[in-house]
């Protein structure tokens, strides 16, 4: 196969692949009649890497092979793709947060007992990353599990002065009738 054609073919293959492709995998795209050997392939990959040197994307060799990706320098711009869509937290996360907020200090086992299902580590991690919950201490029981509580940031986020301002638990009994007439400013 002619050099220029091999380059374009590799572009088409690499750009449309879902996963990184190793040079071994790339080799399998070609039949003997195409007359593409490994040396040609590697040389062309190097050529492609150079060619995209001054562009917004790069041909990067990662663990499992080569892939095109956006350059680090343009992260600011490509981050704007997603900013249009705000992620939503799962019900599991909201319930966990609610239990921590209302029942603090509480352990993971207690949350699980209340919810009736396992609390994934991801949820705790997300809540901690968000700095909404923190470990208040450890319970003096076997395993010394962490006791979680909410943080100042949690109060700030929900525009609460203190935990006392959380909607009353007793309101929950008639929550359907009450219709959530919270006199709280909802900020974002």
């Amino acid at each position, binding site marked *: 196969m002619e050099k220029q054609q091999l380059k374009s073919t590799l572009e088409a293959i690499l750009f449309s692949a879902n996963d990184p492709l190793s040079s071994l995998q790339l080799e399998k795209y070609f039949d003997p009649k195409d007359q593409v050997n490994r040396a040609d392939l590697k040389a062309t990959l190097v050529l492609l890497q150079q060619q995209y040197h001054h562009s917004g994307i790069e041909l990067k060799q990662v663990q499992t092979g080569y892939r095109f*990706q*956006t350059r680090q320098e343009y992260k600011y711009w490509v981050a704007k793709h997603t900013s249009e869509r705000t992620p939503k937290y799962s*019900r599991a996360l909201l319930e966990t947060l*609610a239990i921590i907020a209302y029942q603090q200090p509480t352990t993971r086992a207690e949350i699980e007992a209340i919810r009736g299902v396992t609390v994934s580590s991801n949820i705790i991690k997300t809540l901690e990353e968000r700095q909404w919950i923190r470990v208040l201490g450890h319970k003096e*029981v076997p395993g010394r599990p962490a006791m979680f509580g909410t943080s100042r940031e949690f109060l700030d986020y929900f525009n609460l002065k203190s935990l006392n301002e959380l909607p009353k638990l007793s309101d929950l*009994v008639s929550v359907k009738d009450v219709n959530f007439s919270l006199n709280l400013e909802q900020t974002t």
Partner: protein
Amino acid sequence: MDLMNKPTPLAVVQGEVITQPPEDLYIPPEALEVFLESFEGPLDLLLYLIKKQNFDILNIPIAKITEQYMEYMLLMQDIKLDLAAEYLVMAAILAEIKARLLLPIHEELEEEDDPRSELIRRLQQYERFKQAAEDIDALQREQRDTFSISVPKIVDEVEKPLADVQLDELLQAFQAVIQRMDVKSSHQIKRESLSIREKMTHILAQLQEGNFLPFYNLFINIEGRQGIVVTFIAILELLKTHLIDVVQTKAYAEIYLRPATASEENIDIESGKKSL
């Protein structure tokens, strides 16, 4: 109707039209069926007959075409192909045109009054869309001819936008939890104030009797949601004031309450009894 006189195709084999069955060759009826089924309708069949014999679409020899059309109809009926009603309607139209052409032409007739004109218009109209369908099929298609590219984006973790949560969502989430816990209590009890202090006393009293209590035993279903909440707060209150301890041997295991004075070693968790 004489099949032998007309080059009526019986089948298409690798693009070649077979007009007469070879004498010593058996044509499976299924092959014929596939061929006949490939028509999209009477107009498609008529177009095929016209093109096959290089007839001018604008000057169709109605008598010949009608004859051939009827032969195909018979063939289709012979192999018991489900004939769409439209085929029969077309047969009637052809017969009518044929009859009108046989009538003596009145002088006042204009060209537009050619009895074939409506059929010709329909055939042409169908033909152009048949062609258009082929043209569309030949267009470059995404995921067939071209593949849109979306390379992974390299973004900092922290730049991921954070989800928004409203306070009432939090409350609703908690309500859902409570409701699930309460799912067994079938009736709504009247709103009656269960004091937390009263509950605390009750729990402590139970603990003194048995010295050891499974956590869940404290939640009495008939008290409903409010009861559960009050009990829970009471337990928390007791814990806070170091009046009780909560014990769990391992993750997901049953949770037990015991008076704060009892020490761990004295409790056989497995049996749930005190074993001094």
